[in-house]
């Protein structure tokens, strides 16, 4: 209703600078810590591939339905993110416990033979991130000072 208003010289300068900036927009990764292992590398996928994360993918309940291998992958490859935090929570709910010295997840294979103030000893399953598989360890001493 008010009709156009001629742009000022300053407006034209602003448009010119905006136009230039438009060709190098900020990228979401500019606001994120560097991802040493899984940097964002957007690549076009067929449209019939899921383009969106499943609904409520950022809830503990969702993570609890993931396999333990998936949780271990998320834990070690998405370090420092909410995904790692949720994976750790889901693992703990499945009685895995993080050994802060070996930096591996352990789960009791049976009731420990010995339990003292400072440690417990028995047979454990643990996830070996170097060999990327679960392994059994008998006669292992889990010192509580290394329990997260």
């Amino acid at each position, binding site marked *: 209703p008010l009709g156009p208003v001629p742009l000022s010289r300053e407006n034209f300068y602003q448009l010119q600078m905006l136009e230039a900036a438009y060709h190098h927009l900020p990228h979401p990764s500019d606001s994120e810590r560097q991802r040493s292992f899984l940097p964002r590398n957007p690549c076009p996928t067929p449209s019939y591939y899921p383009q969106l994360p499943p609904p409520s993918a950022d809830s503990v309940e969702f993570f609890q339905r993931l396999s333990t291998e998936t949780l271990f992958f998320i834990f070690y490859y998405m370090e*420092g993110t*909410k995904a790692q935090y949720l994976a750790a929570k889901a693992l703990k709910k499945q009685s895995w416990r993080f050994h802060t010295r070996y930096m591996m997840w352990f789960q009791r294979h049976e009731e420990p033979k010995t339990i003292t103030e400072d440690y417990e000893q028995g047979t454990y399953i643990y996830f070996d991130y170097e060999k990327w598989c679960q392994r059994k360890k008998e006669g292992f001493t889990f010192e509580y000072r290394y329990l997260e």
Partner: protein
Amino acid sequence: PGIDLTTLGLNLNSPENLYSTFQSPWVDLPCRPQDIDYHVPTEYLTN
């Protein structure tokens, strides 16, 4: 007529708040959990 604001990639019916997964004004997708920096216990920084 303006823009159909439901097409800007925001789940306006979400019971959760939107800002905590808001990715960018130029992107019509929310952040995924692996996009969100989190102050995890330092023991988790295994790399």
